[in-house]
């Protein structure tokens, strides 16, 4: 938000404004796959054919005209071509309208928006990704990226917790990751049922599955609801991992997604611009982000 040129008293006279930064571009729904009672995976493609060109951790604003617009993380990796996927939970006005769409329908997309993971900084490191609940959606973009660029990374651990087996996202993929030997993926649910043969409890329990990590070589991504964040951070810091090796993604209400409307502020930071992915050291200074 810093003024580019404090001497410019009046907005530049150079451009006309035939377009609006609030105007989405059209995208076609290619596939809709229900994953849980509330969550479906939407495969989309921009009608222009342009690839989104996102980084893992970034989001888009998705519109259904007449209902509104809402921020949704991109849950596929940029390495997967021009098609992209959104995992959407129906909770309100816009997300319910999205769930009524079928393949062939159009939606509006603005983005990619915000700052995601700086993948170049992650290259060459061991990776530990910890996700809770719906946040496997943004985490999956990063997980796919690491798998697609596997030779650029060292050891790779994924810890994922959900409330119950029914609420697990990407179940088929979790099963496949569980069988690969180049990723160590552990899943836990708070409340097990008779179908569940895995572990039960909170996600921090999974830390006992981790081998001795190389502190200096390991990069950590923590993505989940505010309540999970605190407990996971305690474990991560207890491992002795340097704070500038930890990335966190945080949630806020968002309307514009481009640093104007003010809704997403955490203290003086516009999360839609500087985030949603932050270095832990930066978040620590933001009282509203961690309280």
């Amino acid at each position, binding site marked *: *938000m*810093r*003024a*580019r040129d*404090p001497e*410019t*008293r*009046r*907005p*530049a*006279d150079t*451009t006309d*404004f*035939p*377009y*609006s*930064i*609030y*105007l*989405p571009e*059209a995208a076609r729904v290619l596939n809709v796959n229900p994953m849980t009672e509330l969550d479906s995976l939407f495969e989309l493609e921009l*009608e222009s054919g342009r690839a989104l060109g996102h980084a893992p951790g970034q989001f888009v604003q998705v*519109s259904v*005209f*007449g*209902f*509104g*617009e809402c921020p949704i993380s991109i849950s596929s990796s940029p390495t997967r071509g021009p098609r992209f996927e959104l995992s959407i939970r129906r*909770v*309100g006005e816009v*997300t319910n309208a999205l769930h009524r*769409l*079928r393949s*062939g*329908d*159009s*939606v*509006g997309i603005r983005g990619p928006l915000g700052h995601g993971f700086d993948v170049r900084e992650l290259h060459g490191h061991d990776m530990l990704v910890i996700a809770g609940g719906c946040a496997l959606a943004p985490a999956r973009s990063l997980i796919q990226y690491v798998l697609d660029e596997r030779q650029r990374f060292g050891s790779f651990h994924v810890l994922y917790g959900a409330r119950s087996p029914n609420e697990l996202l990407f179940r088929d993929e979790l099963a496949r990751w569980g069988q690969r030997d180049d990723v160590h993926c552990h899943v836990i649910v708070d409340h097990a049922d008779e179908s569940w043969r895995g572990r039960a409890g909170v996600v921090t329990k999974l830390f006992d599955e981790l081998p001795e990590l190389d502190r200096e070589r390991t990069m950590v991504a923590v993505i989940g609801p*505010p309540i999970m964040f605190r407990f996971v951070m305690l474990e991560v810091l207890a491992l002795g991992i340097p704070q500038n090796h930890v990335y966190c993604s945080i*949630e*806020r*209400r968002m*309307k*514009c997604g*481009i*640093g*104007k*409307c*003010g*809704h997403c*502020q*955490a*203290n*003086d930071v516009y999360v839609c*611009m500087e985030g949603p992915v932050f270095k832990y050291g930066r978040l620590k200074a933001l*009282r*509203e982000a961690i309280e």
Partner: protein
Amino acid sequence: MLDGIISHQELLRRIDALRVERRLIGPVARVEPECMPPVRYFYQPVERADELALDFTYCVQSPKAVLLPPAEPLLRFDRESGKFRAGPVIDHTPTALIGVHPCDVHAIELLDAVFSNGNADGHYLARRRSLFIVAVDCPEPCTEGVFCRDMETHETDRGFDVILYRLDADRRYGVVFASDAGRAWLNPSLSSGGMRTPNSDDERTFIRYRQNKERAFEPRLPMPRRELPEMMARSYDSLLWEATAQRCYSCGSCNLACPTCYCFDIRDENELNGGGCRLREWDACMARDFALVAGGHNFRAKPGQRLRHRLYRKAAWIEAQTGLHGCVGCARCDRACTAKISIVEMLGQLAEEVQHAGTRP
């Protein structure tokens, strides 16, 4: 240094000439004997210059509505199911805003920065580029309670096309230009006698005007403006936020009245014919659900947290982000508040608290 001297009559003629190409908006007096004060001023569209009250005290609402309307369509769309048809709505109506006091000129400068930084907002900028601004300086505080002098916004030398200084009682104005458009409008050579270049007497009158003005404004804050961010940095955990906010109604009137509040909501409105528009509407960080997300988590659930957020923006954060004033000291928020929560009083109380806490180790 003045660029010209203009008589009241000539000024009105020139404003009427502007009307040929532009919509005119300016302060209009509304007389309501049962209200306090009985005469209040509002920015309104007018047809003729003599409808304007150029000697107005202050306008109840700030001029931000001219650039950022309380509700404006951003896009129009066609709602036919599964199809995508939408286009931007951009308003270029040429407008002259006559009668903007220095505090509000500073506030407009902030809006300019916010809407042109990073992602330039064509909706705002199209309106701004179509706007001609005639500022009117204040020889003395426009009303009780303002603290523009403390915020250093009681004068300005930029951000307008022309500024007028009312030099004496027979309504003679000193003129300063800040743009070519302003110069072209009041070009002395077009004069029928009412506009002329200043002489040394006029310059002396202008110096006296400014000396009198300096004396007319009393300080209301216990510290200079540049010390506010440091004071705020030490006030995050003050009990005053919660204590004061106990009487807050979370109505957001303070935000709506404020010339530097620009946060907004976006929502869709449908029309019966299958069309509709995506609207931008003013929003208020003091309102309960401003930071509420689906699922019920509210990132600023307590009124005290919201009050703290608003004051931090006004007294520290906006300036750190833009280099411009986050608060221009107009006291509109104080006047708008039914609960009598006053920003200038709060800043004073926080300052006192910080002073009592002594210097930091």
